């Protein structure tokens, strides 16, 4: 048999039918649903008199328009309240388990799937959210879909899909102290650009990826879409199995052994060909930070903001100039030392327990710089409980940071958490588009370490200067 990549193996394992002149009909093993991209899909089912085909493969939670204020408070925004209520009502109507606002398992959809053991190797996973690639960390083919496709999956558990190209992202070498998974992915996006992976699925491989924990792999896979790739994955290994084993929805006993035996066949065969490939030297990486208005506009933290005058392509030059105007940054100057108004630690990229531990490591025994608003938002209620059990919440509070309830929070600014016009944030989230964190707000994307370091100094800071 022809050697295949893990991407092709998962694809082949899920083909329900392939008719000439049509995309493949692909079976979906896990469908994650949230309040923002689903209401119109449920309405579509109602209009056609359809049921949800596999409620047992579907799970819902509320995260995007969900406030991160104490759960005892009502949702003040009536439109958001209606959307959250609609999700809970639709789930009840269609028999879908929903981890709503009162649930101890509520959280960001891409945090709770793995945490509950729902996300497993070899699966196809979809969600009406572009950061679904997060689940690729488990060796799953996971991608974001629109609301029409959400309706298709609800009704049929299938999707019509065309095969993507395969793109090998090989990261070898050892990360230096202060350099994290976030810096790997920001560096990739800066190198290939935000359209560099369009039409492709990434396989992240190499010794640096193997050395990452599951949570770090999730951070890398999460931002695949920021390079244009709909999905990105890491082949499963013992790190993966150790993480999944014993979780609530993971197989047990003989079923577990059988599952692992199957998963061990997933990694890319020797000699399999990728359509594209790139190599990154992990040892050469520095902490990365974005300066502009898309995630591809990133630089090593010690570098200078690029100069539009150095770019020959007119549209590219204009787009850089426009970004610098929006960000009110001067070309050729360092970002280090730039004042910061807000630090946001959270989002589906960096809100897991290891992210919070990293931030706490820097904040412990220190104080947030006066005038800087620091929000720490756990990715799920389970992450919150774990952090509190470890005393991390106290470290954050003692430092002067705000410790909040689980949700997407300031990553998407549709839940009350947002920047004011003109404010600068260092954010551990995934997008720095104009207005993404609030109209007129300006975002520097970085790792939790960089965010925590900048919280203390009040300016963009190289965390390596604060490491013990």
């Amino acid at each position, binding site marked *: 048999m022809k050697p295949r990549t893990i991407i092709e193996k998962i694809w082949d394992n899920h083909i*329900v*039918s392939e008719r000439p*002149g*049509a995309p493949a*009909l692909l*079976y979906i*093993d896990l469908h994650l649903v949230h309040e*923002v*991209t689903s*209401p*119109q899909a449920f*309405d*579509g089912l109602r209009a*056609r008199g359809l049921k949800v085909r*596999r*409620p*047992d*493969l*579907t799970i819902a939670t509320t995260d995007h*328009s969900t406030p991160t204020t104490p759960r005892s408070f009502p949702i003040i*925004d009536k*439109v958001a309240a*209606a*959307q959250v209520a609609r999700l809970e009502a639709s789930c009840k109507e269609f*028999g879908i388990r929903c981890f709503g606002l009162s649930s101890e398992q509520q959280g960001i959809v891409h945090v709770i799937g793995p945490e509950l*053991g*729902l996300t497993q190797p070899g699966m196809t996973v979809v969600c009406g*959210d*572009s950061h679904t690639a997060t689940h690729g960390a488990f060796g799953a083919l996971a991608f*974001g*879909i*629109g*609301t029409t*496709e959400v309706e*298709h999956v609800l*009704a*049929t*558990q*299938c999707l*019509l899909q065309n095969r993507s190209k395969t793109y090998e992202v090989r990261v070898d070498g050892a990360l230096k102290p202060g350099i994290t998974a976030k810096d790997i992915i920001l560096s990739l996006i800066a190198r290939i650009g935000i*359209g560099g992976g*369009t*039409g492709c699925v990434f396989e992240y491989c190499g010794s640096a990826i193997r050395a990452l924990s599951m949570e770090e792999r999730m951070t890398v896979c999460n931002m695949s*879409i920021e390079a*244009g790739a*709909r999905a990105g994955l890491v082949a499963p290994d013992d790190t993966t199995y150790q993480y999944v084993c014993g979780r609530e*929805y993971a197989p047990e006993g003989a*079923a577990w052994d059988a599952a692992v035996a199957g998963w061990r066949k997933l990694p890319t065969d020797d000699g399999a060909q990728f359509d594209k490939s790139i190599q990154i030297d992990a040892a050469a990486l520095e902490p990365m930070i974005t300066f502009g208005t*898309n995630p591809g506009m990133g630089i090593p933290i010690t570098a200078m903001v690029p100069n539009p005058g150095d770019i020959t392509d007119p*549209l590219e030059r*204009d*787009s850089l100039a426009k970004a610098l105007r929006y960000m009110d940054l001067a070309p050729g100057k360092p970002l280090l030392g730039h004042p910061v108004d807000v630090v946001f630690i959270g989002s589906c990229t960096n809100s897991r327990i290891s992210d919070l531990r990293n931030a706490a490591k820097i904040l412990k025994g220190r104080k947030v710089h006066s005038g800087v608003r620091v929000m720490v938002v756990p990715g799920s209620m389970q992450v919150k409980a774990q952090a509190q059990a470890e005393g991390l919440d106290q470290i954050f509070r003692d430092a002067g940071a705000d410790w909040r309830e689980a949700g997407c929070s300031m990553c998407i*600014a*549709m839940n009350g958490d947002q920047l004011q016009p003109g404010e600068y944030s260092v954010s551990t989230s995934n*997008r720095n*588009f*104009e*207005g*993404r964190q609030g*109209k007129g707000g300006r975002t520097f994307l970085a790792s939790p370490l960089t965010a925590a370091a900048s919280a203390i100094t009040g300016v963009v800071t190289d965390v390596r200067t604060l490491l013990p």
Partner: protein
Amino acid sequence: MTKFTAFESRLVPFPIDNLDTDQIIPARFLKTISKEGLGDQLFYDWRYDADGKPKPDFILNMPDAKTSKILLAGDNFGCGSSREHAPWALLQYGFRAVISTSFADIFRGNSLKNSLLPIVVPHDVHAELFRDPNITVKVDLAAQTLTLSGGRTVQFPVDAFSKHCLVEGIDELGYILQQAPAIASFEAAHPALINTAA
């Protein structure tokens, strides 16, 4: 679904690369549970001032734009989130097609499912259109052609299935539902690894 027929229109030039869905429709408008009323929110933060008044110099607020059906966009249009509100907003404003050199994957798929046609043209044609956006062009999906001024035609790619669905007004969900027996056989051969209902 209504059939996608050929049409002629002037272009609305928007020469910005990597235009993301947060610009097309900001996230705060995604709290709606409806598909309607999104046309006025299209490019909201660029289109209106702080008081919510239309900025007269913004391209979409110019009288000609409102009667145009084609957005002429920069490279990698529609990158970012999976929000289908982006094509819904473009359609409700009045667009039926977007011309660019490339589209983000999810946006392209969402657009095709809503009869908003993403048209990919080569860089030279793209540049030519930007040089003279006041021309009227004809979009013929059945022939996969864009007819420029002077009658010159440019072929554009579209996958055969999407084209068939758009031209014939076929609804994809109906097509998938017809395959229920194949889905049931697949399920019988592949027991699920999870059970969220348990």
